[in-house]
């Protein structure tokens, strides 16, 4: 099909995906704002004031980038996982499968939808955080690049999860048992330099450490890991997950009999 046809198809999937999470904004956009406010009140104001400085910044300023990133990760992932699984469950994914839509357009459309929600929620959370702390920006391009690549990574992860899922339980298992622990252990609330050497080494295999630290660098100019390594990890994840998603959907795994 021509690139114009593909562009219109991609626009349609993006429109559908963005329309979906905007239609149910009370479920998709409001909860992250409430959750993040609670984090700021509890960890920032109540507990944070007793912690003191972390890597040269007051605790509230230190955790802001991590909290924003946490919202981006969970929302990018869950948007694609629930939307694609719902499309499988209601069988309306067949609308795309019978149409001349190339697999890459389907993947790009859903990932784009996940990125849109992740970044919109990230923006909302950033605005909420302004109520609690003055945010400084060290390098806006690092912030934009990190949030884009991270949301793409987790949107792809959510898509792969949905391809394999057979029930709504299956799309909550990975966020609950893998994503949340990795996020909490990914340096959102602490600098990994505070950990014993062994656990610092273990943290190196947690990809979220790289995302949170690159993002924090964009705001505060500090990072526990090298920026080059952080972006390399992100790109490697995106390429790998994209190839997996393309292969699964092309073969019709979980989609075609």
């Amino acid at each position, binding site marked *: 099909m021509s690139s114009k046809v593909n562009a219109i198809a991609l626009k*349609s*999937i993006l429109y559908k995906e963005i*329309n979906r999470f905007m239609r149910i904004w009370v479920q998709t956009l409001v909860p992250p704002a409430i959750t993040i406010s609670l984090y700021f009140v509890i960890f920032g104001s109540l507990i944070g004031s007793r912690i003191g400085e972390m890597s040269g910044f007051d605790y509230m300023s230190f955790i802001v980038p991590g909290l924003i990133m946490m919202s981006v990760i969970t929302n990018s992932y869950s948007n694609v996982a629930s939307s694609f699984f719902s499309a499988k469950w209601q069988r309306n994914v067949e609308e795309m499968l019978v149409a*001349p839509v190339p697999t890459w357009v389907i993947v790009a459309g859903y990932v784009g939808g996940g990125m849109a929600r992740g970044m919109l929620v990230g923006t909302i959370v950033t605005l909420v955080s302004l109520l609690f702390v003055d945010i400084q920006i060290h390098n806006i391009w690092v912030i934009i690049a990190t949030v884009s690549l991270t949301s793409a990574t987790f949107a792809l992860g959510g898509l792969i999860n949905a391809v394999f899922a057979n029930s709504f339980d299956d799309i909550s298992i990975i966020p609950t048992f893998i994503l949340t622990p990795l996020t909490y252990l990914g340096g959102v609330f602490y600098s990994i330099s505070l950990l014993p050497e062994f656990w610092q080494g273990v943290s190196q295999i947690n990809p979220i450490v790289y995302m949170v630290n690159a993002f924090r660098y964009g705001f505060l100019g500090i990072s526990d890991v090298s920026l080059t390594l952080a972006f390399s990890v992100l790109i490697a994840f995106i390429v790998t997950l994209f190839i997996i998603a393309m292969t699964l959907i092309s073969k019709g795994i979980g989609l*075609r009999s």
Partner: protein
Amino acid sequence: MKKALEISNLEKIYKGGFKALKGIDLTVEQGDFFALLGPNGAGKSTTIGVITSLVNKTAGTVKVFGHDIDKELEQAKSYLGLVPQEFNFNQFETLLTILVNQAGYYGVERPLAFKRAEKYLKQLDLWDKRNDAGRMLSGGMKRRLMIARALMHEPQMLILDEPTAGVDIELRRSMWDFLRELNQQGITIILTTHYLEEAEMLCRNIAIIDSGVIVKNTDMKSLLATLDQETIVLDIDKISDTPQLDGFAVRLTDDHTLEIDIKKSQLINNVFAQLSAQNINVHSMRNKSNRLEELFVSLVGSGQAVKQEVN
């Protein structure tokens, strides 16, 4: 005449080893109104699934307007519109959104898609519901929505899998008129249905599939011409014993109703003459079932071939 669909030696074996299609061959000419009939589990939906790429085939070739689905899948898909058996639209989206997005998947720009959506929703009497979510529609409306959706990219071939299932007779007839009109505009239509009357009324050519094998593939007139016997039902004055009619099989189903089997070579006059001679008055007469149903039953093993449904 160009071939709209060419299926050759198509096989499908599902996981677990169930052989749904056992090497079927089928050709549908452009502009045809074609019926694909068969009992549950015969392989109709599997065949449609393979044509529309919702089911991966095990062997064989499928060409849509000359485009092999193995080599030119996207081109082949662009000719097809599918109305599936199950409701498969997003129940939470509005009718307009469903239709406009579907058109977008085929590369139709949104302004044109909105115009087409209006046209088809009006034609199918759904325009008033355009801003309602799909889940708010009745069963018949949902079926019509799926027809509208399948037409949004103006396909050259429309495949309808049991489109009138669960639809009342009045609505069914209006859908028949709509489909006839589409066919007259040049759209090739392939129809599977449980209502054999529907196939007889609409289709010019027919294939009967049973247990994954095409048992008959011919034109409707030739098929009906092979029918050797019909059963008529007569409403009569009350009688207590079954009358004996020379040369005819007669059954008294209740004290006011007679069923009589009449072969093609026999005359109905003969029946009436014998009944008059026995002072039995006939008030009305009708066919017991449509003719195609009788043929269908004889071709698929006395109608007892109800197997596991494969969708």
